[in-house]
């Protein structure tokens, strides 16, 4: 593995982790923009824009774009979160140059009115699809309730209303600022020819204009509000809990992630033994999500209506126990073992590695080897976890539930 870096004059960072023994390569553009960078009027524009990049450029129409990817057998897609939009592809090494050129071209899309109008329907279908996935819906609503006015609570998809009102012109102006080269990173990993990647970046991206790009960074303590939404067509209760945590740059992110594993990994955690093993809840997990300038612990629990009270009491008991007596050495060791093996397995695939290398650069402007992360995880102590619990008290959470009509 060899790390490479080049910063173009316009600020575009090009980074690579080259591994000549890999059978494939992956490449991606990481754009530092997402729903938290939107105003209420244009909510959903980042995600909509992600779709529009596939609609082509002045030279290539949407059908030609799709054909160009499929001709080289690329496994490609994109995703948008609260603060990142990522475009990626995994290919056989011989096609890396071609797919990188294609992505670079697509980063300057035509954003035509006619494409915008037809894609609006697809976005509205996607919003409808997630409405039928309560496990997703509950997280989305809880995030909004938790961040309570803080931009990290903005919905990634937007609402049917905000998408209806969005204009192509608003999108073009958002694009012109947020897709500035100094707000983007081009990442390649795996069996790649670094000189080729640099030469593509120089040729295709050096004309892009640098911009002043801003993002409001404030920590959010969370609203701690509690709400329930009734949906008569549901069969189960879906519960989401959210509480504040450290940010993506905080060295305590490793301890935070281990704490979430101790409390809410899908097997062998406290949630597992108290809720799932005892069949009180069918699913109960907790995760740590690090963000720019802030962070959150979020838990998802699915149970029958009859068990809701008992489940919530049990959860309160778990968090109370955590504050009173902390975690044990044994729990921390198990969490480390699971986290370390997951890290190794994920990073064996260029696609898995792309995401880690890309986000490390996006958040830290730092290259971290797998060994750096392994060592950071190994170094976490029980005391580190205890001071996190003390400072952030994860038992003091925002709560949102979605479920069927309650029989009283």
């Amino acid at each position: 593995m060899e790390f490479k870096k080049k910063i173009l004059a316009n600020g575009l960072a090009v980074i690579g982790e080259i591994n000549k023994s890999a059978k494939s390569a992956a490449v991606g553009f990481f754009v530092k923009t997402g729903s938290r960078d939107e105003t209420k009027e244009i909510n959903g524009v980042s995600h909509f824009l992600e779709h529009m990049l596939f609609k082509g450029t002045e030279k290539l129409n949407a059908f030609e774009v799709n054909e160009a990817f499929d001709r080289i057998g690329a496994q490609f897609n994109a995703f948008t979160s609260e603060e990142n939009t990522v475009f990626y592809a995994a290919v056989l090494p011989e096609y890396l140059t071609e797919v990188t050129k294609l992505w670079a071209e697509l980063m300057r899309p035509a954003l035509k009115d006619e494409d915008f109008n037809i894609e609006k329907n697809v976005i509205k279908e996607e919003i409808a699809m997630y409405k039928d996935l309560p496990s997703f819906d509950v997280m989305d609503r809880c995030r909004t309730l938790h961040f309570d006015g803080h931009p990290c609570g903005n919905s990634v998809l937007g609402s049917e209303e905000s998408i209806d009102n969005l204009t192509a012109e608003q999108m073009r102006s958002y694009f012109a600022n947020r897709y500035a080269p100094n707000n983007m990173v081009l990442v390649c990993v795996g069996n790649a020819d670094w000189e080729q990647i640099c030469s593509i970046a120089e040729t295709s991206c050096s004309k892009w204009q640098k911009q002043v790009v801003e993002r409001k960074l404030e920590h959010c303590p969370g609203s701690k509000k509690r709400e329930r939404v009734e949906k008569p067509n549901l069969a189960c209760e879906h519960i989401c809990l959210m509480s504040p945590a450290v940010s993506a740059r905080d060295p305590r992110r490793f301890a935070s992630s281990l704490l979430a594993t101790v409390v809410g990994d899908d097997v062998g955690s406290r949630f597992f033994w108290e809720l799932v093993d005892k069949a009180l809840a069918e699913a109960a997990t907790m995760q740590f999500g690090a963000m720019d300038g802030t962070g959150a612990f979020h838990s998802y629990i699915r149970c029958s209506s009859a068990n809701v009270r008992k489940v919530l009491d049990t959860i309160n008991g778990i968090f109370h126990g955590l504050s009173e007596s902390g975690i044990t050495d044994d729990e921390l060791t198990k969490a480390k073992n699971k986290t370390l093996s997951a890290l190794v397995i994920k990073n064996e695939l260029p696609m898995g590695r792309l995401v880690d290398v890309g986000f490390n650069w996006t958040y830290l402007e730092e290259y971290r080897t797998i060994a750096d992360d392994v060592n950071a995880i190994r170094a976490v102590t029980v005391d580190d976890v205890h001071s996190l619990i003390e400072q952030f008290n994860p038992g003091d959470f925002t709560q949102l539930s979605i479920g069927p009509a309650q029989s009283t």
Partner: protein
Amino acid sequence: MAERVDKHILKNGMVILGEPMATVESAAFDFMLPAGAALLPDGCCGAGSVIADWIFRGAGDRNSRQLSDALDGLGLHRASSVNSSHITIGASLEAGNLAEAIDLYADIILRASLKQDQFELARQLAIDGVLALDDDPRQKVMLKLREQFYPSPLGRSAVGEIDELKTLTAERTRQIIKNKFNLSQTIFAVAGKYNFDAICRQIENLFETQQRTPAEPVKPVSKAGKYMHLHNDGAQVHIGLMTNTVKPTDKDYYNARVAVSVLSGGMSARLFTEVREKRGLCYAIGARYHGLKEAAGIMCYAGTTPENAQETLDVIMAEFKRLSEGISEEEISRAKVGLKSSLILQSESSSSRAGGIGSDYYMLGKVRSLDEIKNKIEETSVDSVLRFLRNNKFKDFTVVTIGPKCLK
């Protein structure tokens, strides 16, 4: 590229397969136990999910907690699944812990405690799992589709039926485990970093028995189910559609795979182009090949709002029917590149290879090398695919919809 497949058969008939991967530090393994949903006695639908949970609740001299701690201590990631033919239990982990993990899995398969109180919990979770399916119409529609499409009991739901789970007893389930965990028909598959001789010795010590028990054949009964609608006041109509095609052992198997890829291999494929790109009817639309040993089909999913649902279904059906009218060289070439590339990209993951070699052996009685598959894909042509499509016209479609509106 790893082209060696290791194979050893115990005296009792249990098959051990391995695919070494030079560049990884992980290993993944699967035990494929011949206790799939179609092989269960009538009236026990869902017993597979109960069993896959129950056997982990204590085994050998370890109780539930000790067993889970031992697995977590190895940092392994469990993966259990139930399909028509098998209950598969496996894991991925760092290669150094493989031998210890196999010892634990031998206890789970051969010496599970199967205590009454733990049975009640496993059964309750299985019932809750069926309920949770009501809140995930996208997954439910595909389960119902398989149930409707395949001759009974091949399409039987692996998740289960609430009525049958409610009457399932511990005694009955113990009997199923005793009868169905037939080592003569069990396949063990490992991929990644391992020592095959050591694994064979270990498995032999743990699993060798004197008797060889033949498999009990399934006698499928055709059913007449064509269209089924389940009402749900959700945001979308979830459409599942399935039509008959050749089995994995058929000489035309690769022609069928290429044909499906022309329909739905990438974003330039027909369904995505016609349904989403040109008409904006859906967000999620796709078709894939689904093969059992006894029968196979092409299954298609689309999720769309009620006002677009009828047109979506009509366009999908028209695309299926139009396929045999003509395919361009360019389309075939993209389909072939796509299939070959995804094959190679998947070959980098130890867990996907362990699953791949195990299912190959079950379906075909041998493991295909990557080169063999690549060559077979390469041999297909516009002529061969069209000839196949004309000899195997899509005639009957099984359709299931879930949502607020019934279709014609």
